[in-house]
């Protein structure tokens, strides 16, 4: 029991950030800036809560949550690549849209409330810890150890040359964004299962911190995970000191400050995928 408590305490701030950050890595390695991570977390948390509420099956809830979030990933792909919308705008638009949609549907389904509880009493931490290890290995090996991964990265580095070399860049981007959504969905599902309720804007800016971690980790899965651990440890500090030594607001500011310093090249030079955020005809 004590072990569960400790593990929960340590992993709770880490897991949602980690999955969102991995989703961010997948998306950005394919050249698509992903500000929509926030909306991925939000829609998956909402769907997970709803499905669990009505079916009482955690597995089904997590899977549908991930699928919903994968659909959001596909939307972000459509907007940025097919409709050629600026990546930042598409992300911001999806975030605002999803925030409104989830609140509205919650109020329709739960008598004008802006939140709902789910009767879940399990400990999702272990399952998600296993998933964390598995996905980390999978994503790292895929990106840096396989031929498809090499082509995938080439789409984010130089899509024109990749296309000349016979890589179907559109397909890579589409599947990349679907995978990005699916992975981030695990984080959103965890948020709801862990807290036992869905509240308005439950993602609470985690998508943006995750994006900061992606930048801080120089777009490499292992370093990004290290970045997430560092950012999560700020949250641990907050829980540990309860604002007595360092005020909470300063702690919540740290991830952004550290990322800004990183961008300035104080620790190491940032090297994003060369075609990140560019729109090609």
């Amino acid at each position, binding site marked *: 029991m004590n072990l569960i408590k400790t593990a929960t305490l340590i992993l709770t701030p880490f897991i949602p950030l980690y999955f969102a950050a991995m989703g961010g890595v997948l998306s950005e390695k394919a050249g698509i*800036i992903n*500000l929509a991570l926030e909306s991925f977390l939000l829609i998956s948390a909402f769907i997970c809560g709803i499905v669990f509420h009505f079916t009482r099956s955690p597995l089904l809830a997590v899977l549908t949550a991930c699928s919903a979030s994968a659909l959001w990933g596909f939307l972000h792909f459509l*907007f940025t690549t097919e*409709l*050629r*919308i*600026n990546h*930042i*705008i*598409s992300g*911001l*638009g*999806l*975030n*605002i*849209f*999803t*925030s*409104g*949609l989830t*609140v*509205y*549907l919650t*109020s*329709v389904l739960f008598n*004008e409330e*802006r939140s709902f509880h789910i009767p879940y009493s399990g400990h999702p931490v272990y399952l998600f810890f296993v998933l964390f290890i598995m996905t980390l290995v999978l994503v790292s090996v895929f990106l840096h150890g396989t031929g498809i991964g090499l082509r995938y990265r080439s789409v984010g580095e130089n899509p024109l040359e990749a296309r000349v070399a016979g890589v179907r860049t559109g397909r890579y981007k589409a599947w990349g964004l679907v995978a990005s959504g699916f992975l981030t969905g695990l984080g959103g599902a965890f948020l709801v299962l862990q807290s036992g309720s869905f509240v*308005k804007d439950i993602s609470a*800016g985690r998508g*943006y911190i995750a*994006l*900061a971690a992606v*930048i801080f980790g120089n777009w490499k899965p292992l370093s990004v995970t290290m970045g997430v651990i560092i950012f999560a440890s700020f949250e641990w500090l907050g829980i540990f000191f309860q604002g007595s030594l360092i*005020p909470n*607001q*300063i702690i*919540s*500011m740290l991830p*952004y*400050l550290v*990322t*800004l310093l990183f*961008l*300035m*090249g104080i620790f190491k030079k940032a090297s994003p995928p060369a075609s990140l*955020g560019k*729109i090609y005809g």
Partner: protein
Amino acid sequence: MTVRKLRPLLFVLAGSIFLSVVLLLTGNNPLKFFLDLIRGSLGSASAISYTLQYMTPLLYTGLAAAIAFRSGIFNIGVEGQLYIGALFSALAGCYLKTDIPCLHFLFTLAAAMAGGALWALIPALLKVHLKVNEVISTIMMNYIALNLCNFLVMETDLRVDKSLPFTKNILPSAGLSKIDILSPETMLNTGFLIGIALCLLFAFIFSRTAIGFKMNITGRSVKAASYAGIDVKKIIIRTMLISGAVAGLGGFEQIAGVFKHFVSPFPDGYGYLGIAVSLMAFNNPLFVILTAFLFGMFDSGSSFIDIISNVPREIIYVIEGMIIILVSSKIVRKGGEYV
């Protein structure tokens, strides 16, 4: 006005149709929803007054975004610049006392502009000297501003009382006076007129002055601008300073006209909605007035609906999110990096 300029109305229509489908599927009457939206935003003198009150901060943030976008700088940091401007004006408004009342008002105004400009200067310098992409840095600056303001207001002596989460009230000499011709109950104030005047001023600057011309050219093509002998770095820094100062004035309007003190948490989202307002206005300061009015209608109408029916206010985000996405789909296709 050409037909092309009317296209954003089509996107409002598309968003409305989508929302109608969502409302129908969930058992609400879309027709009643949109009638209530109009009733709550235009239906009475007080409704119009609320619409104008809600559009006021969007005038400033929309204009701030438009100024930056015009010059090809993607300033997502309007939100944070507004926060810092608000904090600075709240502090100047209660601590910078002078015997000449008009001077105190000007000090407060200047403090807000300085705060916003300062917060915009940091990403501008990073962009010019260290080639740091302004999108990411301004997003980071937003969250730093948010947490910094909350920290200063909640944890330091600036807080008026341990039980109240805000700073001391500003002195009346620093405040904006209310406009209560339409309705005495709303917080519509002279900041609205200042906002309109600023939009007109920048419409003039962009079409008739040298600096406006240089900003336009830099926005169209950095290469062409530098071939033409324009100091692009200087333009970038100036643009960000101006954009930040306008965003800071938006914070000033909220403090001096609406709240009279900095409350934590401060209302958020005006900066991001300003981006939507600007994009929908083709980054044209004159059209910003129209689109800010539309978004003001969304705000007042949805608050009205929240009160009189069981539909939550947040439903309007569905339309707003869609408009942001749809509007930029056409604009990007026209060519140009962001504009």
